[in-house]
């Protein structure tokens, strides 16, 4: 029993099943429905924090000892060095346990896992971000990363369209407010239908608003995250705008356990969402069976 991870960080490195110990430093309730909370996690050990090197697009298993673990996209950016963020929707047992937690609780994080948005390919290109609902998490990571002064010069103009059912369901309100005046970023917010409250954003479903705004496909790559129905109707719009299949980048989710390509459940054809993904281009996805 007396071999705590703290004394033997090597165990964690050699054993991909063992989570890093982290502490919940802060919890933000994100929406009016109160079923989305963002957990700010701080590593208990400095060497673990350094070992947890990731890029936007990746995910990790958040581990609540005694309950289990679940995979979530990493919502923070590596430029936010002191903590990692996960936005969690209240759905099953692990998420219920997280939602019932208070700041200060010790939990675990296993990762980072999966591939990243194609950052090398994105260099020198304009970026078109299309997102709906709470799938915005890894794009919050991506936008924060690209707006960081150390990265801003590498990427062109960022167009971002982010939609939700109603204004109260939009995540990261503080960041959204700050991004309105960020240089190099044009942020468009949308809600599905006319809200019964003051609203200075767009009204309409994401694919329709995207068609109306019509961002240029010239030298641009699109990053798309959202519910399946939004993705289904967004892809044709992007193609109308002139985006090649290779330049439409999507992120998949499937049920997972190990996260390291062994347990056999997240595969889509021969590709494993946990190790070959979660990020795929539409060109790649088109070749795979629709098992996601």
């Amino acid at each position, binding site marked *: *029993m*007396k*071999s*705590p*991870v703290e004394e033997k960080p090597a*165990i964690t490195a*050699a*054993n*991909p*099943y*063992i*989570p890093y*110990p982290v502490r919940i430093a802060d919890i933000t309730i994100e929406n009016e429905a109160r079923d989305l909370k963002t957990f700010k996690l701080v590593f208990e050990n400095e060497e673990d924090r350094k070992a947890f090197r990731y890029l936007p697009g990746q995910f990790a298993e958040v581990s*609540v*000892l*005694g*309950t*289990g*673990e*679940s995979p979530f996209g990493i919502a923070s950016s590596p430029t936010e060095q002191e903590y990692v963020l996960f936005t969690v929707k209240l*759905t*099953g047992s692990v*998420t219920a346990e997280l939602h019932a937690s208070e700041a200060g609780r*010790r939990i*675990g994080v296993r990762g980072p896992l999966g591939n990243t948005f194609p950052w090398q390919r994105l260099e020198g290109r304009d970026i078109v971000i299309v997102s709906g609902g709470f799938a915005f998490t890894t794009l919050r990571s991506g936008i924060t990363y690209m707006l960081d002064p150390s990265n801003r010069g590498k990427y062109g103009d960022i167009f971002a369209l982010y939609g939700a059912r109603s204004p109260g369901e939009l995540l990261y309100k503080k960041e959204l407010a700050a991004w309105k005046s960020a240089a190099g970023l044009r942020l468009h917010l949308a809600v599905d239908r006319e809200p019964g409250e003051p609203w200075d954003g767009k009204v309409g479903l994401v694919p329709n608003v995207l068609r109306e705004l019509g961002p240029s496909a010239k030298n641009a790559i699109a990053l798309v995250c959202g519910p*399946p129905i939004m993705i289904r109707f967004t892809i044709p719009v992007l193609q109308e705008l002139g985006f090649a299949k290779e330049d439409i980048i999507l992120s998949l*989710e*499937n*049920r997972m*356990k*190990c996260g*390291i*390509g*062994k*347990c*056999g*459940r*997240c*595969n*889509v*054809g*021969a590709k*494993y969402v946990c*190790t*070959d993904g979660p990020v795929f281009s539409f060109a790649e996805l088109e070749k795979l*069976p*629709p*098992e*996601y």
Partner: protein
Amino acid sequence: MDRGIIRKSDIPKLAGRGRFYAPGRSLGDGSCELVENPAEIVYDFSNVRVPLKQLFLPQTEVLCTYDFDQVTEVSIPAEPIPILVFGCRPCDARALSQLDAVFGPENKGYADPYFLKRRESSVVISLACNSPCPTCFCTAMGGGPAGTEGADLLARELAPLASDGALLLEALSDKGRDFLKSHGSLLTEAGPEVLEEAKKSSAAAEAAVRKANDLGVDLGADLSALKKHMDPLFDDERWEELTASCVGCGSCTYLCPTCHCFDIADESRLYKGQRIRTWDSCQFPLFTKHASGHNPRKTKRERLRQRFMHKFSYAVENTGAALCVGCGRCITGCPVNLDIRDVIRSFVKETTREIAS
């Protein structure tokens, strides 16, 4: 030393290095299982019921234990006890090498320390089959009754040298050679003529399997032979027909020596708990069901297809090995007589017909 002759009565003397497992019938129901008592070894068996994978990927194992009273401490289990397996069939040993490709670091860059440590600390001695069962199709999968993959030593039964019979032990790996060296006192020299004689009965067994179960495919000659037949027929109606009788019980996956899909779950009481890994099955609807209720493989059709596609297409693409050794357990264990050989034949036949037309 590459080979030597050992008396069957001396086999129990090999035990002593950690835990010993060999085929035996101690359950009394006629079934053959891996047993720990060397005195119970039997030679007149077709195969053990539960495949060898159980020793390296146990049905249930603890990944870590923890104590979250005050401060959380996570401990991983101690080093595994070394295992000596004597008398597994070559198909089961070959399945281990296919699992090595899944759990080894070359698969997506992640090594599974639990499986690999058990593999490293074990010695596997397989026993060549002289009388294969009617459901054996190892030769179609690229193996054989005296196959050498996955084991450290291969034992072959020799015509009785003494009243209790004798075995020819042949080293297949460095570990196997070291093992022979350290047990030299139990061995007598085996000249090339002994090996030739033993190979003759293996060749006869192999010819028998080929004759009984010629599936029209040889993965040993072309690993992608089935993949290229199956990939274009992913949406074919035959999956519906093949699935019609399936009850989704998952027996095939539990009995399969290469099926390795697992679940991870936490069990806790008060402030102590453990994270455990258990065998799971792609045939169960919950296996892929999202928390949202969405299920990417929502009917038996998709789940059955997944099992065969994983074995003959996805695994070939990802790890360079198919996930089937032709042991036939899924045939004998299926409650509705679903037969993997029929599945294979159906694809081989279809493609041959397409090429002909």
